[in-house]
């Protein structure tokens, strides 16, 4: 009986239109990216940054754990030994175009070096620019620090 009533009086369509009407008078949620930034949730995982110590030296020890754990194989590390037996990180490359932002690198890092940041501005004109190195990643840390300071937070 209800079925027949619904069929004749288009109640479902009216219900749907009701939802539309409800949202018609609500505040708009569209953000005009890239002119306007979208809000970022606390657990959002953006472009990585690598922490440095007080002297500005990277905390990364080149243990290769992030490279191994990375499921999309976007991290590439080359380490070497210096003349005085010191550990050198010759290359730390992260291909953002391959990265799936899973955060495993952050999880695996035993020395609290690599972290997932809040920045999501990955768009670029060429693929080459997606490959970031240690320098960029440590600069990201400074950016993230400033962002956090502005919000009164600590990284």
């Amino acid at each position, binding site marked *: 009986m209800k079925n027949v009533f619904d069929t004749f009086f288009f109640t479902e369509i009216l219900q749907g239109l009701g939802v539309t009407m409800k949202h018609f008078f609500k505040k708009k949620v569209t953000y005009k990216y890239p002119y306007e930034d979208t809000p970022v949730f606390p657990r959002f995982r953006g472009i990585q940054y690598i922490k440095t110590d007080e002297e500005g030296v990277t905390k990364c*020890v*080149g*243990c*290769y754990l992030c*490279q191994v754990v990375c499921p999309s194989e976007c991290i590439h590390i080359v*380490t*070497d*030994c210096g003349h005085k*037996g010191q550990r050198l990180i010759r290359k730390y490359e992260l291909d953002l175009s391959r990265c799936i932002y899973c955060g495993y690198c952050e999880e695996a890092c*035993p020395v609290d070096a690599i972290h997932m940041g809040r920045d999501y501005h990955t768009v670029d004109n060429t693929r080459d620019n997606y490959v970031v190195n240690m320098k960029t990643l440590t600069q990201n840390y400074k950016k993230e620090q400033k962002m956090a300071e502005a919000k009164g937070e600590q990284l």
Partner: protein
Amino acid sequence: MQMVNLKINGIEVEVPKDSTILQAAEKAGVHIPVLCHDARLNPFGACRVCLVEAVGNPRLMTACTTPAAPDMEILTNTEKLQKIRKTVMELLLINHPLECPVCDKGGECTLQDLTYETGLTNVRFDAEPNNTEVDHTNPFIERDIDRCVLCGRCVRICDEVVNIQAISFVNRGTETMIGTAFDQPWNCEFCGQCISVCPVGSLNNRVYLFKNRPWNLESVDSVCGLCSCGCYIKLDHEGNEVFRMNEAPEEGANHGYLCAKGRFGFEFINSMERETECRIRKNGDFETVDFEQALDTVSEKLGAIKSEYGSDAIGVLVSPRLTNEEAFLAQKFAREVIGTTNVYSLEPTTSLPEATYEDVENSDCVVTLNIDVTESNPILGLAVRKAARMNDAGLYVYYPSETALKRVATEMHTGTPDAVYAAMDELVAGKTKAAEALKGAENPVVVYSPYNTADLYYAQELKKAYPSLKLVAARSKNNSQGVLDMGAKNGFGPGLKETERGVNLRKGLENQSVKALICLGENVAVRTGWSEIERAYSHLELFMVTDPFMSETAKRGNVYIPVATYAEKNGSFTNLEGRVQEVQKAVDKGVCTDSDVIAALSAKLGKELTADVDEIREMIRKENPLYKDVDFNGGLVKYPYAIKGEFEKETVAAGEGSFYLYPAALRLHSGSYTRWSHDLAKVYGDAKLIINDKDAEAAGIESGNEVAVKAGDVIRVFAAEVDKNMTKGCVSLPEDYADTADLFTKGRVLKVSIEKSG
């Protein structure tokens, strides 16, 4: 053999008497964790990780040191044991800094594995790191005292196996650490055995340090290509770069031991100095060409020379760096494609392998004739040491200067080369204690150098006098034996069958009847006794050289083709025991192998020769009676004779001068390959003249001074090294250098005059 029955975790097992509980557990398939134990070393029982419980005995016992007794009931994994093992681990970790991410041992650290195995997450005691500085001074061994757990494996292997005793426990109680006497720098053979047994990251491989991590590396089982010992190795590589030449503990004829060359000298494989492009000499200068062009030039010239002078004007020189398969292909190329019997190897066929490492290890009397075996063939040297130390076998050493075998030798005959030969004369005459020992021994062994005819005479005489004697010809290069077996020798076909003899290489070059020489990997310019003929190249119309590097010989050639090293090809090597072992390809450096060159060249000359290893191996089985039933993966070849020919004994040293000069081996440089390794060069880069301290003082020479050595009309300058172990009145120089090869062309033992220069 008396057997003992016991129960381990309820599993009944029967083991020979004197076995330890650990060995019994291994047989029963029960795992007992160990840290300080190593099957190659005497039981030590230091770490207490292997504690087990015997039913009815209130005390716990260490599985690695307690002998298995009849009717024992052993429990290895009770709750009590788990608790104790955890505590033991906690105690071990008190002084061990938890810097696993930084430590190069991460991923292959026994302590890390055991911590995981025992499920230890919290250490109840406060960690007290020593914070000692890491010792970076050693070129091969990085020492971090803080990480040491005092298991003593390094100390024991250095004493029991290598017998150098370079390191020991110093201080007492909590101050105990591993160090050298009076904190001197490590002065040892740099074999790195201590690194290989260290269960934690206390002793690390400096060459591999921070280069990569074990889980990133792929490993390929292969054979070391740096000397004739034929050590079983693992080539650890990532991509196309070799990161380590690693041992396989207890495996292979070498029991997993390696020498400095094998462990640290692999760098030449990745060397940036390696050539990648073929070169052709045009108007006196080398011009880069592609592979096809180089082959076209060679085949055209070969064709022209063949039609003008006949095929006997062409020679093929095979180096012992080639695999058996390549050497076989090379002789086939010469004999069947070119149609000449002019196939040469610089290795002598007068002596063939007889004894194996096992024979040496189990021998009850070892004699080394005029060879510093621990330097020339370090792994054979370990077998000699084992026999002398573990079996209490008599070891009689005949060598001009004091060698590392001194501390284990029963008798050491040193002196000027003439005096040593006189002592060897007495030995042959059967007058000495050594002769009596040889007579009374059940398994006597003589180690000698097959490159010196005088030594061959003595070896032959001894073999005649003592028929049970087994001879070890300590050859120098990785496939010195294999190339001969494959028939890459003038007058010898595959299987050492005597065949028609071609033109003598030396004579052929001197009288200019040889117009073209195809030199496969050989560096004639640095080979003792052959460097002089290199001057005769100039008349050659075609001198093609293949080599991974632009060697001294390659520079003199008119066609150069870069080829692969042993890490980049498949095949097999035959070592000094006559053991055939497989070499496997690990990396690809974008250059072809010698067999590719031969096959491509044959195709150009109108005959197809395969470069496929399996197909060549089939051919070897068919055509080489010695290799018919031999397992290419570790099988031993049975040779028809141990020593053959007529030899003259040395009478007097050639030349005039106040010093005797003889060739000595340097363990870090027994080939032209190793000179391309910068790591090895940190210890011995160039040939050094070893001189006695008193002689040096008299001549006003100090270590590092340049000294001119004059033998007849040949004068060469070397840096001096003062060594008090050198006999007075003698000097020595290593082989395999262009300058030293020039000197030794005058004779193996020379009288020379030396003078401080500059």
